[in-house]
C-alpha cells in the first residue's frame, strides 16, 4: 500500500477558532495520508478534534471564525484545499470528497423529497439531464439496498427510518463517485443491528467503487470491524498512528492502551473485575499543559512528561507521540 501515492495528504493541519475567550486551537499539527481503497479510522474522545479535522478538509467550518495555520496543507489532486478559493472548493465537495454525518435524522432537509436532494448533488457535478439524474438516483438507492427505490424517491425524509436515512445519505454522498468519503460517526445514532448493516454496506461500496474512506468514530468496535489503519487523537493532536493490527494488538501509547482496556470484555477471567476506566477528563483547550497533553491522566507520568511535549516519532512504521512508549510484549500490568 505504501508504494501507491496517497490520494489525500494532510500535512501539519492546524485549525483554530476565534472565540469570546480568545483563539483556541482545536486541531494542532495533524498529518496523515489516505490511500485509495483503504479505510482510515480516526478515533478519540469527544472534543479531541476528529470532527474538526474532517470539516477542515471539507472546509465546512464557519469562514469568519476559523483560522488555518500557515503550515497547513491539505493536498488533494495537486491542490492545497486549505488555500483554494471557495468556488473551486465547491467543485471538490460532493464530487471528489463527499461526507456523511452522525445524525441521519436531521442531516436531510425535512421539506424536500429524497429524490430532490439526491438530484441536487448530481445537478452540480454531472452533465446528466433530468431523466438521467433520476435514473442515477434510483440506481444509487438500489445500490444502498433501499427497497422499492422508484417509490421511495418521491418520499420525504420523515417517512424513512434512521437506518434508511443514513442509507440515503450514503447514496447521496457516493452518487458522484467521489475519491474520498468522510464518514463522521455514521453509525453513532443508529442501533446495533442497523449499525452492522451500514458498516457492511460501506465496506462493500468501498471495494466496489474503490473509494477511500475516512471513518471518524469513538467506537473502537467499529474501528476493529472496518478500518485498515487507525489514527488516535487526543486534545487536538495525533498521538498514535498504525495499522489496525498494531493498534489493537500492540498499542504503544498509554492512552491507546487505556482506551482498549476500557472496552468491556466478557468471559470467566473478567468476571467480577471492575471495568478499567481512564481517570480524569480531557484538558480544556484553553489550559493545555506545557508538556504531554495526556500527562494528567497517564499512569506512567514522569518528570519529563511535564516539562517537554513529546514529538510524534516514527517507530518502525508506526508513529507514537510519547516519551516512554510501551514496548512490544510489555503488557497491561504496567499501565494498570
Amino acid at each position, binding site marked *: 500500500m505504501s508504494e501507491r501515492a496517497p490520494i489525500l495528504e494532510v500535512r501539519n493541519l492546524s485549525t483554530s477558532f476565534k472565540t469570546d475567550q480568545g483563539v483556541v486551537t482545536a486541531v494542532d499539527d495533524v498529518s496523515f495520508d489516505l490511500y485509495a481503497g483503504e479505510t482510515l479510522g480516526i478515533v478519540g474522545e469527544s472534543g479531541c478534534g476528529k470532527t474538526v479535522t474532517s470539516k477542515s478538509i*471539507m472546509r*465546512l467550518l464557519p469562514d*469568519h*471564525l476559523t483560522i488555518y495555520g500557515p503550515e497547513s496543507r491539505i493536498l488533494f489532486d495537486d491542490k492545497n484545499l486549505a488555500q483554494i478559493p471557495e468556488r473551486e472548493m*465547491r*467543485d*471538490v*465537495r*460532493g*464530487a471528489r470528497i*463527499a*461526507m456523511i*454525518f452522525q*445524525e441521519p435524522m*436531521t*442531516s*436531510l*432537509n*425535512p*421539506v*424536500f*423529497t429524497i429524490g430532490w436532494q439526491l438530484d*441536487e*448533488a448530481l445537478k*452540480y*457535478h454531472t452533465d446528466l439531464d433530468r431523466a438521467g439524474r433520476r435514473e442515477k438516483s434510483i440506481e444509487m438507492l438500489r445500490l444502498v439496498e433501499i427497497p422499492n427505490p422508484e417509490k421511495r424517491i418521491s418520499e*420525504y425524509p*420523515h*417517512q424513512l427510518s434512521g437506518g434508511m436515512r443514513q442509507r440515503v*445519505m450514503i447514496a*447521496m*454522498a457516493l452518487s458522484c463517485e467521489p475519491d474520498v468519503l468522510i464518514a463522521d460517526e455514521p453509525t453513532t445514532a443508529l442501533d446495533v443491528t442497523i449499525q452492522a448493516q451500514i458498516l457492511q454496506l460501506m465496506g462493500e461500496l468501498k471495494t466496489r467503487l474503490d473509494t477511500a474512506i475516512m471513518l471518524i468514530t469513538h467506537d473502537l468496535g467499529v474501528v476493529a470491524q472496518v478500518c485498515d489503519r487507525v489514527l488516535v487523537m487526543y486534545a487536538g493532536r495525533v498521538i498514535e498512528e498504525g495499522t489496525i493490527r498494531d493498534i489493537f494488538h500492540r498499542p504503544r501509547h498509554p492512552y491507546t492502551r487505556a482506551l482498549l482496556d476500557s472496552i468491556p470484555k466478557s468471559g470467566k477471567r473478567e468476571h467480577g473485575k471492575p471495568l478499567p476506566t481512564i481517570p480524569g477528563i480531557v484538558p480544556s483547550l484553553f489550559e493545555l499543559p506545557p508538556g504531554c497533553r495526556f500527562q494528567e491522566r497517564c499512569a506512567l507520568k514522569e518528570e519529563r512528561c511535564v516539562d517537554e511535549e513529546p514529538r510524534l516519532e516514527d517507530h518502525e512504521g508506526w508513529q507514537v507521540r510519547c516519551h516512554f512508549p510501551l514496548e512490544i510484549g510489555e503488557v497491561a500490568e504496567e499501565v494498570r
Partner: protein
Amino acid sequence: MWTYILRRLLYSIPVYLGIVLLLMACLRVNDPVAGFLGKGASEEAYQAKKESMGLDRPFVVQYFDFLRQLVTFEFIKVPDEEVTASEDGGAAVLRSRGIESWSQEGRTVGQILRESIIPSISITVPALCFTLLISIVIALLSAYYRGRLPDKLMMVSAVLGMSISFLVYIIFGQYWAAYLLNQKLELEFFAVQGYEPGAANWAHYCLLPVLISTIVAMGYDTRFYRAVMVEESGRDYIITARAKGSTKRKIMFVHMLKNAMIPIITRVMSTLPFLVMGSILLEMYFNIPGMGRALLDSIFSNDFPVTQMLVAVFAGIFLVSVILTDVFYALVDPRVRLS
C-alpha cells in the same frame, strides 16, 4: 389535501357557533337599547327600538336569526331597494331590507361594512406585502452576514426603529412628508390626512400610512425572521447541503428559506385578521374611514347592530385565517400532511 381542508373547515363550525353565542350573550348583558337611548327616553321609544331590532324575541330565536344572516351573507348584500332609495332620497324603503345602524341613520350595517373594508384593506395589505418582502430580505442578509458589520448595523437600526413609538412616526410623517413637503416645495404628493376611493387617489392618501406602518412593523419582523434564519442556518441539513457542493446563495434561498417559511407563515397569518380590521391608530390620525374606526365608533356611540355584526365578521375572518395557516403549513411542511 382537500380532505384535510374540509376536515379543518368542519371542525371550525362548532367553534364559530360558540363564538357567536358568546358574543351575543356578552353584548346583551347590559341592555343595548337602554344604553343607546339614554335616561330620558320614553317607554314607547324604548319599545319601538327594541322591536325594530328584534331584541324582544327570545334569545334562541335571535341567535338563529343572527346565524341565518351570517350564513346567507344577507348583511353584506346590496339590497335592490338601496339604489332606488337613494335616488328617492327617502329612507323608508331601506328599512325593510337590511339592519339599520342606530347612530348613523339611513345607513345599513352592510353598507358600513362594505364601505369601511376597502380603505382598511388598501392600507394594510400593501403594508403587509412591503413589510414581509423587505424584512425577509433584510433578515436573510443579516443571517448571511451573521456576527459581522452588516448584520450588526441592520440589527441596531431594527432595534432603533422599533423603539420609537408608532405615534411619533405618524406625527413626524404627517409633518415632514406631508405638511412640509406641501408648504415648502409645493409638492402635493402626500395628503396630511383624508381618504377618497379609487385607485388613482391611492398613492396620495394611502402611501404615507402604508410606509409608516411598514417602518414600524419592520423592526419587529426583521428581528424575528433573522432569529428564525439563524436557527435554521445552524441545522445539520445546511452542512449536508454545503458538503454536496451547494452555493451559499442556493442554501439560503432554497434550503433554508423553505424551512424558515414555517414559523414565518405562522406569524404572518396570525396578523391577517388584524389586517382586515385595519390599524385603528393610523385610521384615526389619517382620518381614514376603515373598519377599525367603524368598530370603535360603533362602540363609543352604543351602535349595537354595527358592533355585533363587525365583531361576528371579525371572528369569522380570524377562523378562516387559522384554517389558512394550517393549509399553508401543509403546503410547506410535508410532515404535517400525515398527522
